[in-house]
């Protein structure tokens, strides 16, 4: 089959990162993540005999019309479209245009967390043929095979579609990929790796998937929709091989270890770090972790193996809010984790969310004071977003908190939740103030520059990213 895997652009030229649970503007971090799901999926399909083209339009700066023109030439049999909640309108629009210009010959399949939850509505758009529910790689492969052989679609696990009588069919749920080593290593030659660069030093970087699945049940998180609650990981040998390939074939030495939480299994992390050092890999990488998984031994090990920045989900500086969102961490644990990581020589990033239910001006002020007291290098404040699939979404619907049903507004810098005690507008205003206060502090600016900028061209690249960042704030 002639397959196109497509990441459509936005009509309003905002560049969005769409990678599973991660749905944010390029401006938020000043980078576009290398699209690991798309490329892994493409590699898997190609290895199974399909002709695959990948188009990551936001990254390559391809406009809508350019995209359509090139698709007309490709004339794909199936188009897999990567989607996210805030971009879903544009993703659907892309699907419509493709359908129209290719005389309805292309089969349109949506994947991502949004269609995994919202497939009943999305399938009523007559341009959408299938929605993939959950982890997409093998579902995409089975679906392509089924379409090719014209076999019974009901036997493809993990999809939703409308049958000939316009009746919604949801096939059996797809089992998570237990042996993750079966997934092929992403072949990055599908895309131009030059489009994916780190914000501060402008070096190329790639995502490397280490593990999937998170057993926790935070009320604001939609990650389980994609990867489920069973933690699974790739073997150390496979990850090392992939890192080696990336270094040797693509000359890239910067990585982001992509996982819901990288440090879920301490033994695995220590083994991996050991293997990176033993393999003589001179790489720099970043990762994330829950604060309760942090200890000095692990932090020292990851630092030695090339980690320079670790990100923690701090979420709130008020214990009762942390309890309410079911984060299962304490303020003490947050402080210990940040201190341990800092003292091990790592830069630390904190992700903070304001505007949860029960949030008041006082709890937000608790959060501000708490975050200020931590030795963090980078902080991102987000508005709580009720993404479909989350407990927060259900609560928002039941309590009538939503200010809008326009999915475009479901972005981290916008609050769509009006509570009796605090309104969406105020949450947005406070968030903006908190961001400005943090990043306009001269001390922070100087520290960031000293720690991350080593040559004049870096500084230029860094400055060029400031306007996008300010727009995101």
């Amino acid at each position: 089959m002639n397959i196109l895997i497509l990441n459509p652009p936005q009509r309003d030229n905002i560049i969005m990162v769409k990678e599973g649970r991660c749905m944010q503007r390029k401006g938020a971090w000043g980078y576009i993540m290398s699209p690991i799901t798309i490329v892994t999926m493409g590699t898997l399909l190609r290895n199974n005999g399909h002709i695959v083209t990948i188009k990551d339009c936001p990254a390559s700066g391809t406009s809508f019309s350019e995209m359509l023109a090139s698709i007309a030439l490709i004339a794909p049999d199936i188009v897999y479209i990567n989607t996210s909640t805030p971009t879903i309108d544009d993703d659907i629009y892309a699907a419509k245009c493709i359908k129209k210009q290719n005389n309805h010959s292309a089969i349109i399949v949506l994947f991502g967390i949004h269609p995994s939850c919202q497939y009943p509505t999305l399938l009523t758009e007559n341009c959408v043929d299938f929605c993939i529910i959950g982890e997409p790689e093998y579902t995409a492969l089975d679906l392509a095979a089924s379409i090719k052989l014209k076999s019974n679609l009901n036997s493809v696990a993990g999809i939703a579609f409308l049958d000939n009588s316009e009746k919604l069919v949801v096939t059996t749920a797809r089992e998570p990929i237990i042996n993750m080593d079966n997934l092929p290593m992403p072949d990055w030659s599908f895309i131009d790796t030059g489009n994916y660069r780190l914000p501060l030093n402008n070096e190329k970087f790639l995502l490397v998937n280490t593990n999937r699945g998170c057993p926790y049940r935070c009320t604001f998180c939609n990650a389980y929709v994609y990867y489920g609650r069973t933690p699974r990981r790739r073997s150390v040998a496979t990850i090392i091989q992939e890192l080696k390939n990336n270094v040797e074939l693509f000359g890239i030495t910067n990585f982001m270890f992509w996982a819901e939480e990288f440090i879920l299994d301490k033994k695995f992390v220590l083994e991996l770090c050991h293997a990176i050092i033993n393999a003589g890999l001179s790489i720099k990488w970043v990762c994330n972790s829950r604060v309760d998984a942090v200890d000095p031994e692990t932090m020292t090990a990851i630092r030695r193996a090339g980690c320079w920045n670790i990100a923690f989900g701090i979420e709130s500086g008020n214990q009762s809010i942390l309890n309410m969102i079911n984060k299962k961490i304490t303020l003490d644990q947050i402080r210990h984790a940040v201190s341990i990581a800092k003292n091990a020589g790592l830069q630390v990033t904190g992700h903070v969310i304001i505007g949860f239910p029960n949030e008041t001006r006082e709890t937000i002020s608790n959060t501000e004071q708490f975050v200020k007291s931590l030795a963090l290098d980078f902080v991102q404040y987000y508005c709580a977003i009720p993404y479909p699939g989350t407990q927060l979404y259900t609560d928002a619907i039941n309590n009538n908190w939503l200010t809008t049903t326009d999915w475009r507004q479901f972005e981290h810098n916008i609050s769509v939740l009006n509570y009796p005690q605090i309104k969406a507008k105020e949450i947005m205003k406070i968030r903006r103030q908190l961001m400005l206060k943090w990043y306009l502090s001269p001390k922070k600016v100087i520290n960031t520059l000293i720690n991350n900028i080593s040559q004049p061209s870096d500084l230029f690249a860094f400055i060029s990213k400031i306007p996008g960042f300010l727009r995101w704030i």
Partner: protein
Amino acid sequence: MDLTVKDSRINWKVTVIVPTLDEEETIAEVLEQVKPYADELIVIDGKSEDRTKLIANEAGVKVVTDNGMGKGSAIRLGLQIASNPIVVFIDADGSHEASDIPKLLAPIRQNQADIVIGSRMTGGSDELFYDAAELIRLTGSMLINLTINYRWNVRLSDTQNGYRAVVRDAGLALNMVENSTTIEQEMVMKALTCGYRVANVPSHEYRRKGGKSKVIVSKVWVKYLLNVIRHLVRQT
């Protein structure tokens, strides 16, 4: 996988650590006084050559021998081997009032502080005023206090006293490196940098009841000064 949140600080138990080096004259009395306040009591001995370890063993107290590098290494080892969330350090020379332990614990259990140091400035001291060396020591320690207070915008009256209660995880998070008594100010400065809350409570310091002090001001002042400067310029 443990998905539970740790219980509240009110119920936190206490490990008391007594670092020793040749304290045979006072150790028995100190251990006797401390016992009622400790859920766990450990003597960390820096390779004493007198009967200190023997006496502690006889008193039924767990004795661990460290590498003998100094008080700093004893404190770091103490934090590692303590099995309770709060660790209290008390000197073995009898100069500290064991009945002050509840005062040290209160701010931690009430979640108002992570490190609580007994203050000789508000609690008084029998020792600080005897001779010229003590005057220098007092002046130096006041200057260090002032520096810390202005640098980290706190108001502490004593940052040098070894008599202190520490949240174990906080102490471990600091990754302290000092081997000697400079660890006491290292702990305060690193803790403040990391955003931990440091507090003082009044505690009276008695005159050393026996044995000899191992801190000779004329030999160590440079070390203290350099240590403060290093932390002042440290980024984090």
